């Protein structure tokens, strides 16, 4: 199973992130990813280097990236986390 998780083309930081997600219970992958996305959003806002549309674009990118991480990391039982532009689901 470990071998499946190691993907030589993956950047090391992404590989570490995938390893972290594989430690999560499947039920918690999306809620904790949502929490992590919120934390990063707050960090970006606190840095105050961006305003208006650029900030919106960056925040959208954070959630878009987080949405697809379960599939990128081959997390069993979880393919995407419907954080954006989807009908409200159990993660809202």
């Amino acid at each position: 199973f470990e071998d499946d998780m190691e993907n030589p083309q993956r950047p090391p930081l992404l590989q570490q992130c995938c390893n972290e997600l594989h430690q999560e219970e499947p039920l918690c992958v999306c809620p904790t990813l949502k929490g992590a996305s919120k934390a990063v959003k707050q960090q970006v806002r606190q840095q105050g280097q961006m305003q208006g549309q650029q900030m919106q674009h960056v925040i959208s990118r954070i959630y878009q990236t987080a949405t697809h991480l379960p599939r990128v990391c081959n997390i069993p039982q979880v393919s995407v986390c419907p954080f954006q532009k989807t009908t409200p689901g159990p993660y809202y």
Partner: protein
Amino acid sequence: PAGPFRYPRCRKEFQQAQHLRACQQWLHKQARQSGSG
């Protein structure tokens, strides 16, 4: 309660400050790249 943690077990896990540290750094990196794009 509102928010992403409708499953109390998940809430407990995320409250550990270093939780999903690498994922937070990866998301931050993607944000920086998109912000400078």
